[in-house]
């Protein structure tokens, strides 16, 4: 195979992987703090995509600028979901938690369908299909911008979790909920914060890919699955792992598409997922929690 084709695939894989990482980080924070696997994660992302779409078509806000609006709004959305629904089932069976988030996801996607029909919407900006060349490899401009924004957000999040008191309280809750509670940390509040942050990450990822992806009510489920693969690969609850996992999955998808065929790339991704589950269910970064 042509070497430049492979290089091209690797570069786009990494760029897309950055956005995947953001989705994965959102899921992994929620899991880390609450031990709840959020099956509605992709649907939350879908809400972010529609938000971006309407900010663009109705008010002409550039999708990348709209992150500034989408992120806080999605934070609020997630915090409300946590306060109203998830907080009530934290102690119950894991399967009930899974079903609740599935239910919330179905409500989101079907409400979107009711409101916006199931038509595919495309957000076309002036730069949607523009790209530039470096060493013969073409780099998509929107993908590059979104990768840079992702990197900035991820660094910001690391800083928040490592350096601020609230961030440390969140990490303490993730490490040991009961101990954190005994130390006077308001665990319910930390849960609300984490679901808010997780949703903000998912929503932002939605905003960032909307210039390059179709927007439709069911778009979420594919991303929910991807988010699972990413977080399990990196180790449930590990942010470093999710970052790494996102980039690996982006790479695998894009390389599999050129080396095998784009029809089979999902099969490759899910097979890797199963392998990781079987060989090292704790993931690449299994031991370190956040």
């Amino acid at each position, binding site marked *: 195979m042509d070497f430049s084709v492979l290089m091209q695939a690797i570069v786009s894989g990494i760029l897309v992987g950055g956005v995947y990482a953001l989705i994965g980080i959102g899921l992994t924070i929620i899991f880390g703090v609450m031990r709840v696997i959020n099956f509605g994660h992709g649907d939350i992302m879908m809400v972010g995509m529609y938000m971006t779409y309407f900010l663009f078509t109705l008010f002409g806000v550039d999708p990348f600028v709209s992150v500034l609006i989408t992120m806080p709004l999605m934070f609020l959305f997630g915090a409300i979901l946590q306060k109203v629904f998830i907080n009530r089932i934290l102690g119950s069976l894991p399967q009930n938690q899974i079903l609740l988030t599935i239910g919330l996801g179905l409500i989101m996607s079907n409400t979107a369908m009711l409101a916006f029909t199931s038509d595919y919407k495309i957000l076309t900006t002036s730069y949607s299909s523009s790209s530039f060349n470096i060493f013969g490899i073409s780099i998509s401009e929107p993908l590059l911008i979104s990768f840079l924004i992702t990197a900035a957000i991820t660094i910001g999040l690391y800083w928040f979790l490592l350096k601020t008191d609230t961030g440390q309280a969140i990490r303490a809750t993730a490490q040991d909920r009961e101990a954190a509670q005994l130390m006077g940390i308001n665990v319910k509040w930390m849960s609300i914060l984490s679901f808010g942050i997780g949703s903000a990450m998912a929503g932002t990822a939605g905003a960032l890919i909307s210039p390059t992806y179709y927007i439709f009510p069911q778009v979420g489920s594919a991303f929910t699955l991807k988010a699972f*693969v990413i977080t399990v690969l990196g180790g449930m609850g590990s942010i470093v792992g999710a970052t790494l996992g996102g980039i690996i999955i982006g790479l695998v998808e894009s390389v599999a598409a050129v080396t095998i065929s784009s029809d089979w790339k999902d*099969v490759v991704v899910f097979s890797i997922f199963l392998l990781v589950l079987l060989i090292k269910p704790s993931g690449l970064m299994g031991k370190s929690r956040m």
Partner: protein
Amino acid sequence: MKPTNPLHSQRGASTVRVSAGIAVIAALFAFPQFVESPYILHMMILFFLSTLMGQSWNIIGGYTGQYSVGHAAYFGTGAYTTLILLTTKEIAPWYGMWVGIAASVVLALIIGSICFRLRGPYFVLASIAVAEIVRCTALNLTNLTKGAEGILVVDIPAFKIGETIITDFSSKVPYYYIALVLALVIIGVTWLVQHSKLGYYFQAIREDQDAAHSLGINLTIWKNSALVISAAFTSLAGSFYAIFVKFIDPSTVLPLDLSVQIVLISIIGGIGTIFGPVIGALVLVPLSEALRSNVITEGLIKIGLVSEESGVGIFLKEHLAHAHVLIYGILVVVVILFMPEGVLGYFRKMTTKKKGGEA
């Protein structure tokens, strides 16, 4: 603390129950003699089919506690095997469905050998991943499955025993009877499971795998047995769906949404009980059909709440039908938050509470 005895009913109550059961079954068999509306028969068929799907899942999910969210894989395998054999080899569905069951059982054993090493949420995720691999494979093996285009059959060959034609499938009635029998069979199988060693072992595994293991229960064998029974009947449901609807594609018989709906039938009714999935189907089928067929919108218009010409009326008429899955979402949230034991468990609790109050 209250003595409960969920596994065996008392003798006195059971004769009443058995006679009531026989009366209901007789009424269901007589039903098509009195009701000719194809629409109502269609609804009944869907109700039986949902019961079959929910009950099949109940055996692995409800009794054994292994929350498979990948049952679409078996449903799709049954549907595809039946229709592929029919369209390419002209093998009639009542032979094809057995091949489908065999294929699903093999698939179940493969999936079991992978997924049963994992527990809790990891098991759920693995079951989804395997089902997605099956879906992607069906989508891409276009030679065999025609991919996204799907498989359409025009005629279902007449069902013959020897030379006698039992039915030629020209109306909904034969489907009605087949679906009814399938639903009764799965209810019977569940009853048998519950009243045998299988039921005790399945439930022990659900309650505590390590404790079960220490009591001489070989987890691999028993979990796989539960999955095989469950997969075989889910496959049968798929085969039936394929000849009933006469069209299948990966997005109708293999998607994650279908796996989720199968789980919900059981959860909404109440898992680990014989009648839970029946109740679940009884709640879900009419509700989602009412949405799908616009009965609700028309009802709102009729009682004058919404005017037909108004924006809201037009909007609901156009879109509510597409969002029938919304009801699944709302129901599951309500059930998990307010009646985690399902509709059946909720009412059981309410009635025992009342009785307790009186005593």
